[in-house]
């Protein structure tokens, strides 16, 4: 019923293409995250859905309600979309108490007296803020303000919940707690949610699906596992946890997606997955630093990928070291707990951890 569809959605500010042709369907009850670096157009997309920004082209539809259609000239104002938007800054009204903040959307919907009080109490209970009903926003901590902002949005039962980096103003510890709490709440309410963040860990931990955005375009839309293990391109591979990229040419690709790549130095690498491109095409093998193991002696068996290399640098990360290697002209980063006293090492990684992406 409240499935959300974006068709070819664009928003241009003069020459700046803040969002450029986004196609996306969010299923009813789904938790979908828009993930991307700062300035990639996440907020613009969210604000366009809420009706606070007018897109330059495309269609926005929620169920059977068309919110925006550039060709038909349809533009529903924000107040008639029934979208609950939580801002990065929370945007609590400073001249109203917590209770009054929550009462506002209900008053507008002409929800009166006892019913209103009950709904406010319910919503505050939901976010565990009932004891703070009489406080003003400036008398609350950041985490509390965030919960009130959420309660103010939930209290009027929006058809869509839109969250713009709601946890980014919290400190690291609180953020992890709030993340779990928010996810749990969303599953309980089964409300269709679009969550915006630039934090990949947040996205991986909370989402049903993630839409990775770059420079106004959507570059991959998939489950967290798929995004992590089968990134659709170098950008995604690097943005979702950093990656090593090794240049090579596609040697062979099987129907199940496994592939062999010949690196520039001649070494053959087996990868678990590759996009369907012709043999001989330029590709990159992506592997994450934490998946690269180092060994002083050449390992006996070879059911994994192996590259001889030289350590060129080392930095201490607390629990582990990060090494920089030179493997036949390719630089590779590796993270491990071991200390090495000789520069000559062998770098190995499982084929399950090697993914081929297009440059």
């Amino acid at each position: 019923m409240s499935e959300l569809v974006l068709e070819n959605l664009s928003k241009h500010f003069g020459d700046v293409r803040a969002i450029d042709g986004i196609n996306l369907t969010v299923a009813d009850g789904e938790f979908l995250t828009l993930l991307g670096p700062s300035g990639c157009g996440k907020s613009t997309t969210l604000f366009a859905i809420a009706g606070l920004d007018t897109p330059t082209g495309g269609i926005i539809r929620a169920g059977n309600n068309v919110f925006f259609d550039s060709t038909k000239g349809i533009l529903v104002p924000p107040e008639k979309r029934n979208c609950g938007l939580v801002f990065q800054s929370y945007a609590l009204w400073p001249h109203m108490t917590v209770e009054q903040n929550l009462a506002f959307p209900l008053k507008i919907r002409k929800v009166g007296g006892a019913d209103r009080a009950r709904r406010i109490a319910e919503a505050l209970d939901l976010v565990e803020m009932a004891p703070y009903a009489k406080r003003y926003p400036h008398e609350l901590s950041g985490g509390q303000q965030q919960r009130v902002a959420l309660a103010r949005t939930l209290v009027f039962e929006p058809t869509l919940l839109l969250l713009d980096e709601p946890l980014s103003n919290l400190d690291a510890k609180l953020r992890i707690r709030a993340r779990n709490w928010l996810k749990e709440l969303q599953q309980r309410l089964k409300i269709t949610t679009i969550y915006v963040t630039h934090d990949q860990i947040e996205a991986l931990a909370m989402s049903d699906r993630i839409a990775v955005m770059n420079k106004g375009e959507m570059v991959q839309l998939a489950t967290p596992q798929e995004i992590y293990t089968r990134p659709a391109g170098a950008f995604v591979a690097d943005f979702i946890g950093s990656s090593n990229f090794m240049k090579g040419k596609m040697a062979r690709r099987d129907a199940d997606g496994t592939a062999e790549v010949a690196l520039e130095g001649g070494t053959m690498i087996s990868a678990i997955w590759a996009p369907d491109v012709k043999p001989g095409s330029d590709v990159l093998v992506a592997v994450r630093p934490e998946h690269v193991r180092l060994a002083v002696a050449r390992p006996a068996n070879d059911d994994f990928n192996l590259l001889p290399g030289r350590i060129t640098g080392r930095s201490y990360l607390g629990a582990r070291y990060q090494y920089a290697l030179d493997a036949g002209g390719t630089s590779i980063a590796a993270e491990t707990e071991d200390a090495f006293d000789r520069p000559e090492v062998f770098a190995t990684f499982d084929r399950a951890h090697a993914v081929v992406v297009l440059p």
Partner: protein
Amino acid sequence: MASIPITARARHGDGGLNRALAIQALIGGSALILVAAPLVPILYQSFVSRPLYEDGGILTLDNYVRLFGDSVFYSVISNSILLALATTLIACILGVAFAIFLERTNLPFRKTLRSIVLWPMYVSQLVIAFSWFVMYGPSGYVTLLTQQLFGDAPWNLYTIWGMAAVGGTGMAPLVYLFCASSAQRVDATLEDAGRTMGAGSLRVLWSISIPLMRPAIIYSALLTFIGSLEMLSVPLVFGRPVGIEFFTTYLYSHGLGGIEPDYGILGAAAAILLVIITVLLICQGMLLTKAGRFVTLKGKAQRQKLADLGAARWPVFLLFLLYNVVILAIPLAGIALRSVTTFLTPLMAPFDLLTWENFNLIFSYDAYVRSITNSLIISTVGGAIATVFIALITLVVHRSNFRFRRQLEFIALYPRAIPGIVAGIGLFWAMLIIPGIGWMHGTIWIMVLAFTMRSIPTAFGAISPALMQISEELDKSARSCGADWWTACRTIILPLLKPAIFSAYVLLFLSFLKEYSSAVFLFSPGNEIIGTTMLSFWANGDTGPVAALSVIQIALTVIFVFAARQLLRSHQNV
């Protein structure tokens, strides 16, 4: 939780967009009409051959030809420009000196002096002119006393420089306000750099600090120049008696002096003044965008090094006191004394001449009392209406999707180019030709309209910065919670804007109380205000009642400022 039925939303929903648009269009349209109302009749009149209310006029350039054929008009132009230059020079030298001494040196009691220096802004230009006349005019008390003691008084206010002194000292606070913020921002490290190279404090001030303030100086110089072109009171009191005519007095005497005013000439002269000031304002606007590049706002407020005045500290302080005594305390004391005496002369002790006659006169005639009550009603009620109206303009300009909001901002700022007397002539003519508004003639509402129009830029400038400080997310979140544009404005933005709206109201109350120049063409029995009654007494040579009215106006100002401060303080304590 049960889902909220759609019908409940639909009730408030439909028509929401139309309501927003209707309100925005109403506000934008009213602003346009208000600003255009005086301009259109003037421009039209300047191009037709007959008075604009008569039929049968034809379009012609004849009015301009006749105006420029009149040799008097050339002296009007040159006098106006000379006076504006002289006034600007005096105001700028004083204002910049205030800024430097009060913001960049270790002058004693800076904080007190800073507020004293602004006092002339609270007093009507008309009162300032009258009070200078009473003390420093040709038969003024101080003038006569000086002549008695030294045989001669070395000043004559009936000259361009004399008038420039009255006007310039009155406008110096404005220059100071503009330069003060830029003097505060002068980066101390730049001055330190100068000092390490061996330059003395004053040398640093002269060669580093002042050039850094240049954009602010040029900007406020243009502002003063425009202000002096518009000035009516000083030329009226000191120029007209000796036949030195200026733009404003020319309009005044051609419009009110003769039996049958020459509408064409009046229209053409007013149009030319409008064009001159518009051009100056456009220059100022361009300078301002350029000046932005010079101004480097530092995020961190750094402690400033204050130049050490050394032994000159106390002498400079005394000089400041003396200055304020001469330009403000003595004239105001003089007018106060004049209000309770039959006349004022150094030959007789004022105590022998004490009388309540001047006040009695004012309080015994309805028309005079009415001018005071009218002024009060216009300031309190009219000021409130104007404040609300202008606050709404600010909302539409800064917080709406109104298609013409950029144009509305231009309209809101344009009245700076309309001198009071021109606004008065224009609105007077508008009442003659626009059907349905003739009833306003002789009511205080035409005054409220005129004063509101004139004060849009002031209040707009006072409210805008505060509005822009309120995060847009606050009203956006109200919108996504279901409020339409107007509800979001009314319940979220306006309550948060209250302090700024209150300050704007204080500003408008004071300027409505002081305003006179746009009223001289609009008043008739019934809607007199303090300023117009003062001018009528003045025209008859009755200085006593003028002094009494001046005292009343100052007293009202003081009471209001005091009350406003108390109110503000009690609110801040909550």
